């Protein structure tokens, strides 16, 4: 789960990390008083969306102005004007896709003088099964580009969870960034703060780009991007409360309420599958036979009739869907339960596109019988290949 920059900064501030003073505003009316509460003489006005590349992005609407999603202002009035221009408008960045994202929240914060910019991240390293620190002197840049062009400018190392964070970890970061004097001490403290926040809040990713050194020798967190482990949300209710549902695809949101794993895609063939690996393989084979999947959907191991009905409703609510392929391998799940769900859903929602059903495994005969005796116009398939060929043919002719 991701949160907004202003939420990330507030959370890191609670742990004692140095961040600028700022205010979030949801309406243009609040902008002026919010900016007025800050000291100046420089204000930074930042669009809050769950996507990177905001500064280099551009707005679809002309009224928003030609600048990107991060703007500087030299007066309270100017800050308020820029906030007003961005609110409600659509920001397109390299991470949002061409549709862009509507800006519903704007963060106004005190501007900072920058001497140097650094990159810093903590992440879960899959190879070592440990938390890893990544830092670079090339702050403000895309770290993947740095990794590709000048990998020697990146330092990364992992921390043994049995020992935990030690001051020498912080010194390694400080020396790699070329810090001296008081800044080394600040860095050691900041790294301990970030490691503590990362572990206590079950983060999967913490990225500070840039971390800055100011002319007065102090460090500051200028931007912050945090990602959290969804499986640990039960013990981080404060973080769960930061979820902004307006940032999520409405179909994915609806699916998550029924514990269905759904991801919207751009194709024309809706899929309903049990198991994530099989769901991916179903998408792959649809593509192999010349069509594109409209979604990834894993109904899970414990699907009920109700869940299957909801899954069906979500798939058919996508106007791009020209056909549906149901592919079930009943290992733990029983085929007859799926069949009942499909029949109930079709009767409830109605069927306007071709539907191919392929069942295999536990109670498969019973499942097929339920489908066949339902009187519905369902195309039966023997295996995955057959199912994929039939649905692609039904849609593409």
């Amino acid at each position, binding site marked *: 789960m991701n949160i907004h920059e202003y939420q990330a900064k507030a959370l890191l501030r609670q742990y004692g990390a140095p961040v600028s003073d700022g205010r979030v505003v949801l309406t243009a009316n609040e902008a002026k008083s919010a900016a007025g509460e800050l000291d100046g003489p420089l204000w930074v006005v930042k669009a809050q969306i769950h996507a990177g590349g905001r500064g280099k992005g551009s707005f679809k609407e002309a009224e928003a102005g030609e600048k990107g999603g991060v703007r500087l202002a030299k007066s309270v009035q100017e800050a308020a004007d820029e906030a007003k221009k961005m609110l409600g408008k659509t920001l397109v960045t390299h991470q949002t896709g061409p549709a862009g994202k509507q800006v519903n929240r704007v963060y106004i914060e005190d501007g900072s003088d920058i001497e140097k910019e650094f990159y810093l991240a903590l992440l879960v390293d899959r190879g070592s099964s440990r938390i890893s620190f990544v830092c670079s002197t090339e702050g403000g840049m895309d770290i993947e580009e740095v990794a590709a062009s000048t990998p020697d400018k990146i330092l990364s190392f992992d921390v043994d969870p049995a020992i935990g964070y030690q001051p020498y970890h912080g010194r390694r970061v400080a020396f790699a960034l070329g810090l001296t004097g008081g800044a080394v001490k600040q860095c050691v403290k900041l790294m301990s703060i970030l490691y503590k926040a990362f572990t206590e809040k*079950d983060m999967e990713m913490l990225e500070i780009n840039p971390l800055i050194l100011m002319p007065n020798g102090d460090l500051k967190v200028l931007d912050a991007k945090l990602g959290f482990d969804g499986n640990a949300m039960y013990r981080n209710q404060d973080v769960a409360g930061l979820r902004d549902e307006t940032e999520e695809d409405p179909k994915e949101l609806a699916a998550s309420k029924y514990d269905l794993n759904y991801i919207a895609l751009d194709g024309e063939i809706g899929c309903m599958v049990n*198991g994530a690996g099989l769901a991916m393989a179903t998408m792959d084979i649809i593509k192999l036979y010349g069509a594109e999947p409209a979604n990834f959907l894993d109904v899970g191991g414990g699907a009920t009739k109700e869940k299957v009905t909801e899954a069906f409703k979500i798939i058919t609510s996508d106007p791009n869907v020209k056909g549906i392929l149901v592919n079930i391998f009943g290992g733990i799940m029983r085929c007859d339960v799926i069949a009942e769900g499909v029949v109930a859903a079709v009767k409830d929602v109605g069927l306007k596109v071709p539907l191919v059903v392929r069942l295999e*495994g536990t109670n498969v005969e019973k499942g097929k019988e339920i489908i066949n005796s339902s009187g519905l116009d369902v195309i039966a398939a023997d295996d995955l290949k057959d199912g994929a060929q039939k649905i692609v043919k039904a849609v593409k002719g």
Partner: protein
Amino acid sequence: MLEHLIDPAAPQVPVMVQGATGRAARQHIKLMLRHGTNIVAGISPKAGGEVQDGVPIFATCADAVAATGARVTLPMVPPMSVLPAAREALEAGVRLIVTVTEGMPVRDAMHLHALIREHGAEWTGASSPGLAVPGRCKLGFLPDACLAPGPIALWSKSGTLSYETALRLKSRGLGQSAWIGVGGDAIKGTRFADLVPLFRDHAPTRAVVIVGEIGGTEEEDLAARLSQEPLGKPVYAILAGSAAPEGKTMGHAGAIVSGGKGTFESKAEALQSAGVHVFRAIPPLVDRVAQDLQKETA
């Protein structure tokens, strides 16, 4: 302990199940017993002293290990209880933990990984669909309909996709010498590459079939290991997720392409350069495996 488990000449390993009195656990214990698994104990703090389906239930892992000599545990407990359950089992002297629970928090998995190393024990999971030596034992969910003794070692990240693969191979008369579900999480106890030395001299195995998917570098790491220490048997792989978009977690916690890493292309290229036959779909893989093994037999 994994090596012992897949050795057809070794005596059956004594297994215990934590959370044995839960509804799903009870159902799967019956299935595992039916498949020949040597389940010697169940653990339930509330049901110590009882007997369930012929299996004695103990209140603690220490009691169970002392009374039965259990060496392997299968914690069938909710995600938040996997780490404490594993910790109790390790303290009691268990040598292999197979975790089938989906949704284990990443921080817990990293802790367990460190604990396992500290104890010199082994862990398969998180989110493993299970392990099996067909006709001998199975641990976890692997459906009986897919299991049959045979020449194929199946190593899989996924549950249902490996069921499908196993069933297709079985329909061509190709069962399994062993089936190891390593699981689809980002943090795990046993990775594909760790299995290489276990199967090099595994006599019942004539070929290895990998059921992999996008995300992480496990397939690439396997390829690197195979290049250095060839298995001496043909290796085939199906890789799921070639049609998946970047930046989205495809159901399995570990199945995500991000920052250009973990792609189908990178995995396919690495495996192919290590001599592995790579497929995007099951039917051509099954055809090829069947063809090659028949040729070898003839």
